[in-house]
């Protein structure tokens, strides 16, 4: 049996009087492809931020690969093998595309391995990752010169450079054309086939259905469905709360 890579238990988060998340239980198995959907404001990004440590949850726990993450800073969680891409791409604007990839190699991978990658190895890894996402010919470009879809590819490549066990892709496809969406989904599936567990947070239903092996629905800070994608979207409560909108 696969031990779960991620276990979220009873997670709760409030902002002042506003309850953003309440009693979230979520278990993600190793190598799974999980889809997470929900209307705007349902708490998806808040959940991601709590899992990654950007925000601190008041109640509940997050366990990653058997380790309780309470009190751990974001960069420590990244070093354990948890990577995320941001909803709005946040590249390092003063560096080239290649250097953007270099940073996680220098900081996350080096720390985890305990031994430093050589300059040649870093160059190889950078090249390989950029080829994988299709940005190899943009190596020396700056993020401001990239198209929307290229920025999102860079965002994913940077997350992959962490050599993650788990990748959380937060709305990586918003605003992209049909074929671009298809490319990104294929990319994520390729990653998954290499052994990376992927949580996909998305609004684009075609992408979600094609990608997910399991689907979780969040509405108003609570989980209302969790299971086989085809069953979940036919669940009347889900239809009412989400798809009906």
């Amino acid at each position, binding site marked *: 049996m696969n031990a779960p890579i991620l276990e979220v238990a009873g997670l709760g988060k409030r902002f002042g009087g506003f309850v953003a998340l309440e009693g979230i239980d979520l278990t993600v198995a190793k190598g799974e492809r999980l889809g997470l959907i929900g209307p705007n404001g349902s708490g998806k990004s808040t959940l991601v931020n709590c899992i990654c440590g950007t925000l601190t949850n008041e109640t509940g726990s997050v366990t990653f690969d058997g380790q309780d993450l309470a009190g751990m800073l974001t*960069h420590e969680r990244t070093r354990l093998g948890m990577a*995320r891409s941001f909803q709005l791409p*946040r590249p390092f604007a003063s*560096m080239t595309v290649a250097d953007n990839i270099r940073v996680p190699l220098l*900081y*996350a991978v080096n720390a985890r391995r305990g031994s430093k990658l050589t300059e040649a190895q870093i160059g190889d890894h950078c090249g390989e990752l950029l080829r994988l996402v299709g940005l190899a010919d943009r190596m020396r470009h700056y993020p401001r010169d990239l198209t929307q879809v290229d920025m999102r590819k860079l965002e994913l490549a*940077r997350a992959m450079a962490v050599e993650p066990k788990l990748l959380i892709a937060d709305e990586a496809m918003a605003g992209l054309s049909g074929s671009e969406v298809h490319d990104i989904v294929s990319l994520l599936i390729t990653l998954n086939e290499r052994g990376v567990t992927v949580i996909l947070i998305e609004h684009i239903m075609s992408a979600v259905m094609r990608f997910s092996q399991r689907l979780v629905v969040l509405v108003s800070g609570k989980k209302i469905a969790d299971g086989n994608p085809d069953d979940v979207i036919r669940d009347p409560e889900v239809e009412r709360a989400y798809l009906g909108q």
Partner: protein
Amino acid sequence: MRSGTFLIVAAVIGAVIFAIARVIDNEYVFFAGYTVLQYVVLATAWNILGGYTGYVNFGSAAFFAVGAYSTVFLHKLFPMPVPVLVIVAAVVSGLVGLGMGYLTLRLRGAFFAIATLALAVVLQTLVVNWNYVGGSRGAYVIRPQTIELFGSYIQYLFFIMLVLAIVALATARAIERSALGYGFATIRDDELAAEASGVPTLKLKLVATTLSGAFMGMAGAPFPYYIGFLQPQSAFGLEYAVNSIAMPMIGGTATWVGPLVGALLLGTLQQVATVTISSAVNLLLVGILLVVFVIVAPNGLVGLVKSAFASKAGRKK
């Protein structure tokens, strides 16, 4: 150019500068030169924190004064050679930088900037009320007339500041090219994304404040000997705060070259202006230049030169 080679080249250039100054044989050159070199160190130190990581320090005078007053304190207690005083100042100022960073760096950059202002005033008040180092009345630090090997003492101080400037520049350059430099740049660009990429932002910020504070303190350590009579108003003077910011911002904050260019240009300009016009007008000019550059050329002189080259290269294609 590797860091070791750079150090050697810089040392050679420094030796040449010193030799030329000796040949000119005018004490004023050493006095003025000391001030310009002091600003090279201050500007470079400021830039390690401000330019590389993006955290603005308004209280450079505080760290400078910590260095100066640790010298005064030790001078009264147990006179030591200046190089030792410099090391002591580095440690004390570095610790102050570390402490301040620890208290405030978990907050936004704006709060850090305000806290640095607060720090300068708190430290000045402490010094003003501390009679052992002279309080508001000031402290006399008698400068020896001569010293073996150098002749006049001011040449010796000039030499020390020259060495400090070389070390500061070499350190800044080495940081830029290292993993540390990349880490600093990510903090400046996007701290959230930096954390998500595995960069320990708090730890790196503390490294930056400690280093920056230490160098500023080192620049302040020989100051009491230079000036002979140290008062809090002069140690905590506004000119240190504004110049530490103006010189890197006018020169260019992206690399080690900017603070050097800014310090050499503005430092020399001010030496000339202070003598010919007045020190108040000279400071006014610095302030105006700062505001103008920040609006019109935020990447500084180095940035202007770079984009001039880039557009030339673009046109060639």
